[in-house]
């Protein structure tokens, strides 16, 4: 028993290595718990995925270890609170322009990340803050990018829709364009022969873009290691899926590409499905398509209250019955993987982290004016960039 406790303790203290290394996580409080109360893992039934052109799908059960659960919980909660903080900052006019929030969809980005390696690649459209985080960008750098400060992950030059990280290619403003880009990244994966894959995300709105079908064709022809992932949150801006698509079976729209439809509110479902799809791609069988059925609590963006095309009752129903964080919390508490108190403590830590990040994001200075001319060309000797008149010039360094 003691050995088990010590083993559990050391596992928890090490944490899921890569993720723990990326952001500060306090383990001290947890270490004082009485571990006799908690199981080290539990097995859960998960929803069977609808299949297209597949004989077998992902498993219908999933094992969740205690430390995985705590990690997923903390990550999803961090994203949730980060997005709510962004909402606040936007209403205070400290964030400007477009701001597309991800709250409600946390199980997608966290579940996907749990199934792939940091060396794999991810690309999405503009609802990207969650992915920027799971791909390794610190909260303070995300918030400072939103507030347009020099400490932002793109030095304040990108904004909400243009955040990048190692093997994360944004953040793309023109929905649909990121899909051929993702297939190109997958082509590079295959070309280099490094057993890497690319997760290429788009929404139910962009799913009707022609370039996506061009990409399906080439990815299938050339067997590119690409997982096409449609985050179906039921609305493309203000247009419901029924009003936009002749076929709302997004997982079938790849036609000759095998597809699965996944419960995007259940992180274990997302994780298992992604593992299944990743295995398919890595084995050289070509692309796969995943439709994640998910939901966004906010409107399309901060300028959309989100209630003219859907009812408050619908939003409330999803919150009460399908919230991804609540689902995980209930699973963990009901199966002795954690306790209400322990998770509350994580909530407190997360809130503190977000507050500190917001503090940074609101006090960090804006980028210096000289930054305006930089990053036009890479590896170019410094040159002059024209400002609004012939007398205003900026120096450009790459």
């Amino acid at each position: 028993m003691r050995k088990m406790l010590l083993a559990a303790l050391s596992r928890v203290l090490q944490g899921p290595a890569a993720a723990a290394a990326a952001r500060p996580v306090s383990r001290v409080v947890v270490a004082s718990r009485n571990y006799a109360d908690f199981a080290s893992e539990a097995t859960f039934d998960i929803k069977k995925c609808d299949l297209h052109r597949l004989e077998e799908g992902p498993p219908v059960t999933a094992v969740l270890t205690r430390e995985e659960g705590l990690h997923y919980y903390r990550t999803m909660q961090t994203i949730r609170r980060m997005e709510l903080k962004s909402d606040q900052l936007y209403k205070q006019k400290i964030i400007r322009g477009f701001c597309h929030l991800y709250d409600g969809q946390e199980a997608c980005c966290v579940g996907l990340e749990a199934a792939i390696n940091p060396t794999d690649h991810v690309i999405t459209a503009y609802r990207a803050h969650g992915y920027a985080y799971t791909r390794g960008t610190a909260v303070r750098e995300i918030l400072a990018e939103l507030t347009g400060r020099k400490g932002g992950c793109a030095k304040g030059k990108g904004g909400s829709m243009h955040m990048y990280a190692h093997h994360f290619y944004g953040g793309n403003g023109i929905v649909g364009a990121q899909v051929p880009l993702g297939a190109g990244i997958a082509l590079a994966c295959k070309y280099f022969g490094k057993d890497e894959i690319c997760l290429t995300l788009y929404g139910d709105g962009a799913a009707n873009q022609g370039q996506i079908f061009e990409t399906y064709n080439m990815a299938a022809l050339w067997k590119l290691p690409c997982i096409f992932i449609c985050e179906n949150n039921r609305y493309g801006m203000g247009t419901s899926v029924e009003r936009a698509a002749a076929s709302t079976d997004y997982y079938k729209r790849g036609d000759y590409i095998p597809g699965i439809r996944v419960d995007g509110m259940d992180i274990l479902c997302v994780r298992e499905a992604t593992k299944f799809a990743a295995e398919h791609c890595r084995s050289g069988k070509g692309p796969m398509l995943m439709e994640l059925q998910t939901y966004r609590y906010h409107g399309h963006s901060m300028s959309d209250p989100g209630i003219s095309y859907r009812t408050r009752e619908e939003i409330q129903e999803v919150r009460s019955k399908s919230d991804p964080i609540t689902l995980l919390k209930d699973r963990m508490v009901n199966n002795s993987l954690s306790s209400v108190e322990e998770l509350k403590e994580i909530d407190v830590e997360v809130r503190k982290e977000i507050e500190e990040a917001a503090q940074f994001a609101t006090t960090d200075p804006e980028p210096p004016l000289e930054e305006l001319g930089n990053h036009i060309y890479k590896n170019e000797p410094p040159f002059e960039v024209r400002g609004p008149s012939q007398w205003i010039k900026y120096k450009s360094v790459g």
Partner: protein
Amino acid sequence: MAAAAGALRRLVRCGPQQGLGRRLRLQLRSGIHGSAPAAVQVTVRDALNQALDEELERDERVFLLGEEVAQYDGAYKISRGLWKKYGDKRIIDTPISEMGFTGIAVGAAMAGLRPICEFMTFNFSMQAIDQVINSAGKTLYMSAGMVPVPVVFRGPNGASAGVGAQHSQCFAAWYGHCPGLKVVSPWSSEDAKGLLKASVRDDNPVVMLENELMYGVPFEMAEEAQSKDFLVPIGKAKIERQGTHVTLVSHSRSVGHCLEAAAVLVKEGVECEVINLRTIRPMDVESIEASVVKTNHLITVEGGWPQFGVGAEICARIMEGPAFNYLDAPAVRLTGADVPMPYAKILEENCLPQVKDIIFAVKKVLNI
């Protein structure tokens, strides 16, 4: 054999130059690499082919994709022999999906490859222009330097012969408008080879605007231009012909027309300075300014439409700079006619600046 070669060399070196093509005579007269014994005749097509071959060999990350580039040897045979040599991995035939394959090329560049994306003509690039400008051109800036995009977009640009309005547009002004892109426009074989090699080695997205009517034209290529490391610097114009009375600035096929006009005008005692821009963006305004300071007269010549064109930009920049005070007459633009390109030969001919139009403009500007 040696005697014949010697005779040929003498023929090449000095007049009378009967028996040589008109274009070649004019090039020799204008003094381009006229007398290097190891110079060879190379068509623009072959120069491009050599450049592709050399860069594919030099760097494994370089690959070519586009319609018909592999098994067809290229719609215009620019990539002849390359698929046989390098295979499916490096030379990729795409379906007719410009937006899709252009995005794929850009994504591949973001992930560390160095793709060359061929547009069968730049008219088709309009379908993919979002990927060229928004994905390729802007990403380095939006990511504050984190994500470079080393991709080359190349293909024939502008008018051909009798291909009609939808296949004849010049995109120099369109792509030249956008910060983040580099845009080059070769005229000679040396330009084509050196600029393509420089573009592939450049870490930025480069749009290379070739010209279909130039593909079959032979030019003399000096010995150093035959080296595998021969590069033409991007962003630097070339003075093709020195002159004192008027500056003719041009790019692509029009450079040849300017040289032909100069050859006619010299008989009347007018010495034209002919500048081959070579690069549209970043434009070498300094070279134009230095020339205008010397000649006091400026004429721009291009195939594209007049409004918001390359010539319009040159005129604006000259006005803003020191050369304005040296102009003895307003700058003049010669451009394509402001209409979609018609098909009938007589109409098409009159939709592009011809040699006679350049001569007329020079005389107007010089008041002779």
